[in-house]
């Protein structure tokens, strides 16, 4: 068994026990990168060669020297008998939306292509303090704005390890592809509408969006500040739990970070689902969405394979002793996407204000007559299409004359979405759920360039994931099978505030119950092709 076939949990144990050195693990991980990743994304990446089209391209910046220093330091500490933490020697990648000191931090945008962060984000700091070795920064949709990673200014953008002709999902596509392709064990992603869970589903890995505030956002370049959640991407549920245990908790630099104590999420992870009440909602078994002209709710059915995978997961959990509650009513989830369009864009437009060519990042190299022309040219040249669309819409719906109609109304609907969850999870309510089970995505990974450019359709990839962001509740996507085309299908569990433990327990039970399933034995195509 190759080193990287082990989980992060197992690797850390081996490194702690001296059975493996951190440098051994790092070398193995870098070999994986060399074998499957191809060239990193760069600005003006040029035409794709045939080889490019077969590679993963998870990385924007590989920080090999830094990783080596970290790995050597860990080995040295182990030699001197020090306790190096629960992620000892575990190779990880960081979505390039987090600041890492003295490391390029691009947000996959031309406007930050030359930005080298002078400080390190809290979650990264905590992972590294726990012994993790950072391989580098991985690709994403520009500023996380997208669901396919294609909108990155750094091309080639990441491709799906299961089928490199397909997208890895997004925006944490670099993270999920890297984990699926064994380029490291774990990756730090962000989830604003499903940006961890949707690509996790597409790449056949585990992705968790923790409760809003469970993990500090300090050092995460903001998209929708009231929605953004840093979260783990891992190959299995236990690794995700381990990673969250290390990252979560109060932070004096983020006052929105929850001060609630952090449990060790590994404790009791194997307690099973006996007696757990898990809900299924018809509102998550169709794509329901309001007609943009009339406001009537239109409905589109899901592909059979997606539906079947979800129902199969329910049966599997029921067989483990869970009680399945059907027909849970979640009527407001249908408004999740339109509400998200308004709220996230208002916040995004404001969050993008600071990129003005004055202090850091890109400034137009051409002549400018005055300050305003410098702003205009810098932002016109520095931002790609997706940030521009968000700025336009965000400015529009928060303008004094429209704010009441759009932004304020969206905030009200957001609280209605939240109250659907409160009802579903209410211990004295009609459903008394511990978790809601849904498909993660309405489709499997789509072909590169298939939907890119049509941002409304692409956003429906987040239809089932975005309500948890509105409500602030935690949700996890775990692999639930493969489609007839051999593409991963994700199943999705949503739990009440701070009930990550429930998600890990249910996910771990599902993994155990399906451990011998044939689909679990299949490896992503890029690994097979590379003989790994």
């Amino acid at each position, binding site marked *: 068994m190759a080193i990287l076939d082990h989980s992060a949990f197992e690797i850390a144990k081996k490194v702690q026990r001296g059975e493996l050195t951190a440098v051994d693990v790092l070398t193995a991980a870098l070999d994986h990168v060399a074998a499957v990743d191809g060239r990193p994304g760069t600005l003006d990446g040029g035409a794709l060669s045939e080889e490019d089209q077969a590679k993963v391209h998870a990385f924007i910046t590989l920080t090999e020297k830094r990783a080596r220093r970290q790995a050597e330091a860990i080995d040295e500490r182990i030699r001197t008998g020090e306790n190096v933490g629960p992620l000892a020697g575990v190779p990880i990648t960081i979505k390039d939306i987090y600041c890492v000191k003295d490391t390029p931090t691009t947000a996959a945008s031309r406007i930050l292509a030359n930005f080298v962060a002078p400080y390190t984000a809290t979650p990264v700091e905590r992972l590294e303090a726990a012994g993790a070795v950072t391989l580098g920064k991985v690709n994403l949709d520009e500023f996380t704005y997208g669901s396919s990673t294609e909108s990155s200014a750094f091309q080639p953008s990441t491709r799906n390890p299961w089928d490199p002709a397909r997208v890895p999902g997004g925006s944490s596509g670099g993270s999920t592809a890297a984990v699926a392709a064994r380029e490291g064990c774990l990756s730090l992603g962000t989830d604003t509408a499903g940006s961890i869970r949707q690509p996790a589903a597409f790449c056949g890995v585990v992705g968790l969006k923790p409760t809003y505030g469970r993990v500090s956002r300090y050092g995460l370049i903001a998209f929708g500040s009231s929605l953004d959640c840093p979260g783990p991407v891992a190959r299995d549920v236990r690794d995700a739990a381990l990673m969250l245990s290390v990252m979560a908790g109060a932070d004096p630099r983020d006052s929105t970070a929850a001060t609630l104590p952090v449990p060790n999420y590994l404790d009791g992870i194997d307690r099973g689902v006996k007696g757990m009440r898990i809900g299924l909602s018809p509102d998550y078994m169709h794509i329901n969405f309001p007609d943009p002209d009339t406001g009537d709710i239109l409905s589109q059915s899901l592909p059979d394979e997606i539906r079947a995978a979800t129902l199969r997961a329910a049966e599997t959990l029921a067989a483990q002793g869970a009680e399945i509650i059907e027909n849970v009513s979640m009527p407001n989830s249908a408004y999740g996407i339109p509400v998200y369009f308004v709220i996230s864009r208002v916040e995004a437009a404001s969050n993008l*204000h600071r*990129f003005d060519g004055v*202090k850091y990042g890109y400034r137009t190299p051409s002549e400018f007559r005055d300050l305003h022309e410098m702003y205009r040219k810098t932002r016109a040249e520095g931002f790609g299409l997706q940030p521009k669309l968000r700025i336009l819409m965000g400015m529009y719906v928060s303008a004094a004359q429209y704010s009441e109609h759009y932004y304020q109304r969206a905030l009200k609907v957001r609280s209605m979405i939240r109250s659907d969850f409160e009802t579903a999870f209410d211990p004295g309510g009609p459903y008394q759920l511990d978790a809601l089970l849904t498909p993660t995505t309405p489709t499997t990974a789509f072909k590169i360039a298939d939907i890119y450019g049509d941002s409304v359709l692409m956003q429906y990839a987040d239809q089932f994931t975005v309500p948890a962001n509105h409500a602030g509740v935690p949700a996890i996507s775990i692999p639930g099978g493969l489609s007839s085309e051999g593409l991963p299908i994700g199943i999705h569990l949503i739990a009440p505030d701070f009930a990550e433990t429930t998600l890990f327990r249910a996910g771990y039970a599902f993994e155990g119950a399906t451990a011998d399933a044939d689909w679990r034995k299949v490896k992503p195509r890029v690994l097979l092709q590379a003989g790994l």
Partner: protein
Amino acid sequence: MSEYEAVIGLETHIQLNTTTKIFCGCKADSWEEPPNSNICPVCAGLPGVLPVLNEQAVRKGALLGAAMQAEIRLRSFFDRKNYFYPDLPKGYQISQFDQALASGGYLDLPMPDGASRRVNITKLHLEEDAGKTKYEGGLRYVDFNRCGVPLVEMVTEPDLRSADEAAQYLIRLRQLLRWLGISEADMEKGHLRCDANVSIRPVGSRDLFTKTEIKNVNSIEAVRAAINMEIQRQIALVEGGGRVEAWTLDWDDAHNRLKKMRSKETEADYRYFKEPDLLPLVLSEDWRAEVLESLPELPLERRTRFMIKYGLPEYDADILTGDRPLSNYFEAALEVYGGDPKVLSNWIMNDVLRMLNELGISADKLSLKPGHLAGVIKMVDKGAINAPTGKSLLVKVQESGKPPEDIVAAEGLAQVSDDSALIQVIDELLAANPDEVASYRGGKEGLFGWFMGQVMRETRGQADPGRTRELLMNALKGEG
């Protein structure tokens, strides 16, 4: 002239004197420090940073709100005010919009005629300061040191009716800020900044006419001069058949004149929305009660009390409550002194204030403690020393830090009022100057002053002048 009245509202920005900035750990005060030397990722608006609210700024803001009789909200919010400017590193200012820390409030300004003018407060909220830009050699430089310094923005209703009233408001506000110890309130250093909105209207009208906004006035005298100038300009314009336009005017301090900065046709849209990076600001009842409890007696209240309780003239009460240490000094001295408050007031207004001005310190920093002052005045009252000795004694106490009684004993300053000692001096004087005595007795009564002076010289000024006069008079009459 008399058919118009001015309608003035003031928008002030008050820099709170907290130790650190409002959303990060940088120190708040960067006065005379090199540009961009007092910044961190948070106040410089780097990608990924988040604000964390400084409790001291909230406390000081709440104190001001309470002193302005505003309601302190238990739940308030921060909002983003979005606009582009090079000295605003995030491209938005974290401010408070519709649910600010304080609501309502007013200040009753005492007017020279004894009446008072109520100035209502429209807005009182916390926000972060922006940086500074300057042009030099065709280039624009930005300094972020001031970014994130805590400010209170406080805006009045258009309740002021003259430049003098506007100046009076600022004087009272500055006094209050220093009194509460929440701001240095130095206009020259930008701790207290003021923009004035000025319009005119026919006397008797209740309407509001087009106003202009005067910016960059950095002293109270400049505010007064700029507003007066603008009122005259508007009157002349309207008299001449013109119309006031909504300009923004810049005060040019070097040349004492107003310059048009820009026309203001439309209100800027700042696209305010609740700051998602900060939780709602929730204060407990206990916290609010504690802040209200810590609110001292305010200067104008104390001023009134001094007039009523001590029977001081308005002029005295005003000066004695000019700052908090001075008014505390007065009351502490009065307690020891126990005599006529007006006598004490005279001593303070003449001698102590001169001393404070010369030393450039506040009353609480004097070595001449209130008890020392009271002791000196008591000695003068008793006749143990005379008034000029008392005055010079104050200086000696201040310089040496020694109690006045010790100095009097050590230097033999006690007044010579022992009749026998004085009579001996007088007898010797008359015996030594028979010609002068003869001239006096012959009608040259103007010589009396000369005799007084000789006695004083002989006693090194320690003779009680009243008693000397009496004894000398008797001796010269030949009745001694």
